[in-house]
């Protein structure tokens, strides 16, 4: 009993009351106004398809990988997209190790709904051989530090990772033209994913007293709030998903107001992500130019033929295609959605 009390995070009555009263005069503890977003920084890893998002103390990492698998029977010419979340106790002591908890599942589902149901990723272009091989895109979201509003951060991390992800190009070969050859990145430039639009999640917190609303709640504010609503919109103002899972009741007019604010924020965040991705892309492009120039003016017969040999052996190796053994949890559009 005492052990349990010793390990939980404490919250004083003073903090709770102060957060609520300050909100009444449109102030928040970290100096923001109710509808200010925290500073957003997006960093990218060395490899393609990894992104780190930092918003205040919140720190989320997104990692995208792809694998050739057999398509689902009902959609033979579409690739798939699946999202996995990892809430390790490192990010917050309240996360328990082991199977994902309720909040991890909800986060995954909301990000998933925003991305998949709104068809942000073009899954048809992921098809290699209809009915046989398609690319399965897997997004892993790791919570490194919980400073509140994990959902928005995770969504941005997923988007940024998707935007920088490159999948190897592949072509059909063999005698019957049914064999898939995956070209290594040295041989053919890997392809980016086709993203139709960027669904941005914007979360609002609702407080019990006097119907106060705040955008992008911190960890402390999340402990005080009575309800939460996550709206997923893109820069065009299309609503892709809304999640308000119970909690404090809110007037219809407030929801409409939140949607309007969210569409503005979605535009801002889209800008930021695009800027970060652009600078990353130019950065990597520059690196390539620096790395390769020595090889380009090389004489033809020496190094180049060697390179070709190397490529050949690589192609041979690729005859063994990775088997779709991994169990990818798939969530079909269920009956009541």
């Amino acid at each position, binding site marked *: *009993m005492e052990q*349990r009390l010793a390990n939980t995070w404490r919250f004083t009555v003073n903090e709770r009351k102060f957060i609520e009263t300050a909100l009444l005069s449109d102030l928040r503890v970290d100096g923001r106004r109710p509808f200010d977003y925290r500073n957003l920084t997006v960093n990218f890893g060395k490899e393609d398809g990894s992104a780190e998002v930092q918003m205040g103390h919140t720190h989320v990492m997104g990692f995208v990988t792809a694998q050739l698998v057999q398509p689902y029977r009902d959609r033979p010419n579409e690739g798939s997209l699946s999202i996995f979340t990892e809430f390790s106790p490192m990010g917050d002591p309240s996360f328990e190790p082991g199977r994902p908890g*309720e*909040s991890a*599942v*909800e986060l*995954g*589902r909301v990000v998933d*709904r925003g991305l998949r*149901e*709104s*068809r942000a990723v073009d899954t048809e272009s992921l098809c290699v051989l209809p009915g046989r091989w398609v690319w399965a895109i897997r997004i892993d979201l790791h919570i490194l530090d919980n400073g509140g509003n994990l959902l928005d951060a995770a969504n941005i991390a997923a988007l940024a990772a998707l935007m920088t992800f490159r999948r190897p190009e592949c072509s059909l070969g063999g005698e019957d033209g049914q064999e898939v050859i995956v070209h290594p990145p040295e041989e053919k430039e890997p392809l980016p994913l086709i993203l139709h*639009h960027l669904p941005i999640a914007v979360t609002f917190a609702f407080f019990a007293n006097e119907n106060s609303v705040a955008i992008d709640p911190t960890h402390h504010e999340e402990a005080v709030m*009575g*309800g939460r*609503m996550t709206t997923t919109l893109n820069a065009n*103002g*299309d*609503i*892709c*998903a*809304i*999640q*308000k*899972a*119970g*909690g*404090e*009741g*809110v*007037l*219809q007019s407030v*929801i*409409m107001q939140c*949607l309007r604010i969210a569409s503005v924020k979605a535009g801002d965040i889209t800008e930021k992500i695009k800027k970060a991705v652009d600078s990353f892309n130019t950065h990597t492009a520059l690196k390539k130019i620096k790395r390769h120039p020595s090889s380009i003016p090389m004489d033809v017969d020496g190094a180049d033929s060697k390179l070709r040999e190397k490529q050949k052996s690589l192609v041979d190796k690729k005859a063994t295609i990775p088997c779709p053994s991994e169990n990818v*949890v798939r*969530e079909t*559009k*269920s*009956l*009541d*959605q």
Partner: protein
Amino acid sequence: MEFVSPEGLRLDGRRPTEMRQIRAELGAVAKADGSAVFEMGNTKVVAAVYGPREVQNRSQQLSDQALVRCEYSMANFSTGDRMRKPKGDRRSTEISLVIRQTMEACIMTHLMPRSQIDIFVQVLQADGGTRSACINAATLALADAGIPMHDLVTSCSAGYLNSTPLLDLNYVEDSARGPDVTVGILPKLDKVTLLQRISCRLCMTDTTGEYKGIRISTRWINYNEG
């Protein structure tokens, strides 16, 4: 596919803003403290409430309010093709969370400290709108158990197909992959507590239609209770 005929009728003969027939029955599970069966057309859901009772896992006991738990499940035979889904998949975990948070918001939990309320919801037949039916059933079961609440939550779904807003989607309309929304409102306070929208590219549909439907359902529930 044509979901609304030129005459303005839907596949099952309803008008766009017409609900399916709803039927509710209290006291379906004798052992439970409160229970209800709720039907919306062919969707049929049973909810049972146990409690407030002693907290089973004493480390979860809250000294100032009741602990609310919810478990949602779908019977294997509830859909057309019998499925064998493992218990506790991601979808049911999420719906359990949604139902729990919705109910928690209207139960006066501070009146029952150090106790626990369990809500069990099972879908017996699924024909679209199971989420709404579950919420409605759970509300009725809680009322039947005599648990003090701020308001009864009522829920309904709506969608947008063939550029027409449709109320209370059935399975066929639901699987058309058009935008749809599930709303849960507190009719007395006129506030929205649950809102889930899944859609692709859509401007805002007017929600008046669905509100109308929900009002009807509220009235009906009240009648049923009386």
